[in-house]
């Protein structure tokens, strides 16, 4: 069998590589995020979605394709997902993609998902990303692909041509029966990311395939993506409000207790 051939049901998972911590640097009055030297990781909720996919895979034949849009270095995130148990990676990368807002990003991911063969029965996303945290991309991809969409999933099962999804939605805990193909965004609940199995790492580099797709491969034009394809612009970045930094008390516990009591009384909560 050829590497990467799809057997069983096809599941696609979109992930994002995010910086492990946000270190802000100021240069000539402009603020940006330090990226050099800051290690990256797979976004938390995306890892939860991967875990969910791998759980399904233990029950029946399931081929998991992981996609990410990002700079060439985002291949690391795909390799990590492969080492954790995904079957194939697709890196969507092109210079024109940088500066994409959620509208443009959803256009790119939808175009890539449309080109997957066989067409995936389930598309998973993490519900939100830790760096931009809008949660807009999954429902916007669902709109683009006209797929049934369920957000905030905490668990799922495949039953025949349907998916059973449990979710936490507003004040509700819901169970939904979803027609396939469908798109689901996953909320990492009591979820602990697991460690990569060391023995899987060479496999993730040698036997498992990462395809690199540019704009041509997904059939989009430069003006449809990146800054040009985005509706929003960031006009300026400013530092959020000054730090509060009030009094720092270093005395004995009795003094600390007195100060806290006074604050509670001043605020009328005692």
């Amino acid at each position: 069998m050829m590497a990467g051939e799809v057997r069983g049901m096809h599941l696609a998972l979109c992930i994002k590589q995010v910086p492990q911590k946000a270190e802000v640097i100021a240069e000539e009055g402009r603020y940006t995020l330090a990226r050099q030297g800051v290690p990256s990781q797979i976004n938390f909720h995306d890892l939860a979605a991967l875990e969910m996919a791998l759980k399904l895979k233990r029950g029946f034949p399931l081929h998991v394709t992981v996609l990410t849009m990002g700079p060439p270095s985002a291949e690391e995130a795909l390799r990590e997902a492969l080492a954790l148990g995904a079957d194939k990676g697709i890196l969507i990368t092109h210079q024109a993609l940088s500066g994409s807002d959620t509208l443009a990003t959803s256009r790119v991911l939808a175009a890539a998902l449309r080109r997957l063969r066989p067409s995936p029965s389930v598309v998973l996303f993490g519900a939100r990303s830790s760096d931009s945290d809008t949660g807009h991309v999954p429902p916007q991809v669902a709109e683009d692909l006209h797929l049934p969409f369920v957000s905030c999933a905490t668990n799922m099962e495949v039953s025949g041509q349907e998916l059973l999804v449990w979710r936490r939605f507003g004040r509700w805990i819901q169970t939904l029966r979803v027609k396939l193909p469908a798109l689901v965004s996953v909320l990492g609940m009591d979820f602990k990311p697991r460690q990569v199995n060391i023995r899987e790492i060479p496999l993730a580099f040698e036997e498992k395939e990462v395809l690199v797709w540019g704009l041509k491969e997904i059939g989009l034009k430069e003006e449809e993506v990146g800054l040009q394809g985005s509706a929003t612009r960031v006009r300026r970045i400013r530092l959020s409000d000054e730090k509060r930094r009030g009094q720092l008390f270093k005395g004995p516990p009795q003094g600390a207790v007195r100060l806290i009591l006074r604050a509670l009384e001043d605020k009328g909560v005692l």
Partner: protein
Amino acid sequence: MKGEVWVVDEGASFGENRVALELLSKGRELARKLGTRCCAVVLGCDTREEVMELIAHGAEMVYVAQGPHLSQFRPRVYTEVVCRLVHEFQPEIILLGATDTGRELAARVAKRLETGLSADCLDLEIDEETGNLVQLAPAFGGRLLAEVICPERRPQMATVRPGTFPQLPYDPEATAPVLYLDAVDAELEEGWEIVAMEVAPEEDRELESASVVVSAGAGVAEGGAFHLVVELARALGAQLGGTRPLVQRGLLPQERMIGQTGRAVRPKVLITVGTSGALQYATGIRGSEFIIAIDKNPTAPIFDEADLGILGDANDILPRLVSAISSVRRENDLEAAHG
């Protein structure tokens, strides 16, 4: 006249929070600057009470789409309704609550209209020169604010978390025209059906609306002081929350995690214990009115977020604090009992 400013109340959230009412006060302010009016759009089954409430809180006109098919949040139907309204009335700005339903509806409407959308805005302004809506959105985990604009497409769309803006005072005398809309084709399939549904436990929902919150971090779990934090919360009648390490240790349910990927709290007073102040967490507490931080590490970034910082060991401070609070409470009760 410029297009209107709209606040979309997706109905489903009405019993849960008052974000639509909060958005009306900001919407009115924006509408004044643009020389237009601020209108509410309501979707739901029986919306009479909501319409009255929205008018009493500042809506200058209400568009109503109602019917049994809108009794619960159905994203495709709701998106269709809002998009049709937008095509007909061409609003300049649309604001929605950043709730699970509001987020999904906003994202879908923006996609279908091919327009811009920003999330969780902390403030909204009108640029005097261009008349564009300036959306102040948290960036990079909240340490920075991005001034987002949507210069070429309309409408300009933004979501705002509950609790960000104050409501206008209730005015029972207020009146406004109400426009009832034709029913939208209810045959739109979502591709899913809800087979079971229950309200999440009450206690899981109270964190975000609590006026006093006590929160614990890894420092507490490691120092064995978690039970003291629980006692403190009990003594104060406060809601208990915490950081991800506590959830991962199984000390707290996920629903009680505070932070960027958890809940955002905005109490009058937050007491945060043994939380170093990682950005992920800090983002979730910045809406608090007064923050008291207790930590052993003098360089912990949490002290930059606090109005009152206490350097010390929770194991020494908390038992004393709990007994002091209990005795103040007893005195107050006695005073009340003796008039």
